[in-house]
């Protein structure tokens, strides 16, 4: 039940933590570019829409990744007890 905040363009497979299906990842800032690669993790993956718009990649986000705004970001922080910033 962990929310990972990924703010850099780094592969989620390279982090030491093991993502499970109970976890979620929100890609923000330069992390949103990771949505353009095949993201092979068990966790549910979200992108922050404001950052996606700013970077001009809205039309490239795959349908498996949900685009959310700050209000959605807040919701994720409500339901995940542990929050880790990468």
């Amino acid at each position, binding site marked *: 039940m962990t929310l990972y905040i990924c703010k850099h363009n780094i592969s989620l497979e390279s982090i030491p933590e093991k993502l499970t299906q109970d976890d979620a990842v929100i890609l923000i800032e*330069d992390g949103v570019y990771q949505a353009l690669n095949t993201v092979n993790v068990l966790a549910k993956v979200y992108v922050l829409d*404001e*950052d996606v*718009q*700013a*970077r001009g990649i809205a039309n*490239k986000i795959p349908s498996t990744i949900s685009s959310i705004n700050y209000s959605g970001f807040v919701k994720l922080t409500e339901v995940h007890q542990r929050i880790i910033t990468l």
Partner: protein
Amino acid sequence: MQKKSFLFIFSQAPHSNLSAKEGMDFAFSCAAFEQDVDALFIDDGIFQLLKHQDTKALQVKNHSAGIEAFSLYGINHCYYDANSLSIKPVTANDLISECSPCPEDFSEKMSGYDFIYHY
């Protein structure tokens, strides 16, 4: 005034830091002083060249938009590195029309610039 040649190399993605903006401001100043100025985008700098960047919701200025005005500002060439592009999940069609791949022998031509700045 003497005329020198400058190459500005951009290797970072836009919006998450000010590095590229600083390099562009410097490049614009060089061009304003009628120097020979070119730009080259490599690695994550390729993302600076993406179309459709809209920073309104983010409430920051869209510095990448300045690239489309490079020639207006007196910057001669806006190149990107085709190898960098080939390993990014975007294609040449996704890039603004103001840029072009750098000539094949460009790494040799680079020795001709008086100044090269990495931003």
